[in-house]
């Protein structure tokens, strides 16, 4: 299988603080790769280096076959970054945000591209409202839609569900799965274990500047002692209750 991302011996320090101390991993084409780690583990630093926003101190990093230092523009052409905070222009409408990115990617029919994405992300009705009026989930959807303009082969999602309510979170998960089905490679960082478990084909854990585990969920599970069978009464979690009530309400409305 073709490698979309190849990282070898990546090191990065900020002044005296060593954030990445020799990170190695590979991401295969078409997979969903989750970089897991606690706050401050260096996830965002890694993403920024892969997306050409930061320069590595040491090591080699190739994205879609291009070196991030020598061929930064080719890397930028071939991927899209969705940062930690929804980078939408709040003064512009949803549609204008998408048209702007389409123009900056020099696509032929920016208006048509925008309309298609708005439809795909369920934002058609809100298309002509300013993004400032959007809910957190809608803003994140618009943010991701903006990253999909021009169909990049690879998309980075840096903590895509941090700060979202449970519904918004499920929306984003659904979208990531659809993206992957359409052949896009997805690199996501998260601090939520269930998120990685739900989405990722491959999971790497970044801890104290190094990748300490890297593998599929099944491989990670096999690292631990075999499952014991225990009988536990399964109480619905507050999330289950919340989503069930909300779901019922929406059915009534429909």
């Amino acid at each position: 299988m073709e490698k979309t991302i190849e990282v070898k011996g990546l090191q990065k320090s900020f002044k005296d603080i060593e954030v990445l101390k020799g990170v190695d991993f590979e991401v295969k084409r078409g997979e969903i790769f989750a970089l897991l780690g606690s706050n401050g583990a260096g996830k965002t630093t890694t993403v920024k280096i892969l997306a050409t926003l930061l320069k590595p101190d040491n090591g080699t990093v190739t994205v879609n076959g291009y070196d991030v230092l020598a061929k930064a523009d080719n890397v930028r052409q071939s991927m899209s970054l969705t940062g930690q905070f929804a980078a939408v222009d709040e003064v512009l409408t949803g549609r204008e945000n998408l048209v702007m990115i389409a123009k900056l990617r020099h696509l032929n029919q920016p208006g048509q591209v925008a309309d298609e994405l708005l439809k795909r992300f369920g934002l058609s009705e809100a298309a002509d409202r300013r993004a400032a009026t959007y809910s957190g989930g809608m803003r994140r959807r618009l943010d991701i839609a903006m990253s999909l303009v021009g169909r990049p082969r690879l998309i980075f999602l840096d903590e895509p569900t941090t700060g979202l309510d449970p519904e918004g979170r499920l929306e984003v998960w659904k979208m990531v799965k659809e993206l992957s089905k359409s052949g896009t490679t997805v690199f996501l960082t998260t601090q939520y274990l269930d998120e990685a478990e739900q989405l990722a084909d491959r999971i790497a854990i970044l801890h104290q500047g190094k990748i300490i585990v890297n593998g599929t969920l099944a491989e990670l599970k096999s690292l631990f002692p075999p499952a014991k069978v225990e009988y536990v009464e399964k109480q619905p979690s507050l999330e289950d209750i919340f989503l069930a009530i909300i779901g019922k309400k929406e059915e009534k409305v429909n």
Partner: protein
Amino acid sequence: MTMELQTEMRTETVKKHYFSDIAVMLGRSMRHITRSLDTIITVTIMPIAMMLLFVYVFGGAIKTGTENYVNYLLPGILLIAIATGISYTALRLFTDKQRGIFERFNSMPIARSTVLWGHVLTSLVSNAISVVIIILVALIMGFRSPAGILSWLAVAGILALFTLALTWVAAIAGLGAKSADGAGAFSYPLVFLPFISSAFVPTDSMPAVVRAFAENQPVTSIVEAIRALLADQPVGNNIWVALAWCLGITIVAYIFAIRAYKRNAA
């Protein structure tokens, strides 16, 4: 260079579209301005209020040696308006930095400088709008000028250069700021600079130390040059001093602004 090498380079080089990218960026921030018309009002209302105050309240007591105090005052008022206007440029840059919009643009295959240039052009356009509004109000208040087209063009040129110089200063403030208040606050001293110049009163009425400062700071030469051009009088050396100040500030501020931008983007 051989043919093969050329074709290979073509496929490996990502084409840059400076002008169309800058146009997109300009269109974006012009929307910001037209959608928050209150910023234009804020930018123009304070200088207009000052103009009313100085002409109708203090003006009678100020001896400038000219018959028409509005004519004397207008250049300084325009500079105050521009100094107020560029604080919004700083604010817009700060917001872009804060919201991660710079990150998005910088991770795209567009020239990094286009993002800054979009803001700079927007600053020029929006300040031009406020300058025109203030000149219209001044006309109602009795401002008259015998200046011909060439002199007016020269005035427009000096004002544009002054805006450009201060815009790059604003860019440093906006990119380096830690809070939105901080991004806007730097312009207060700039707004006050015209008061310690010949903008409102001739400098010979000031005490020696203040006078020395007033006569050698940029605002005085710019004000004097614009005033002479509008009055159709010989401008003398002032215009060259004014241009030197504007260009000097632009170059120094540009270097620091680009450095601040790269530090943010790096």
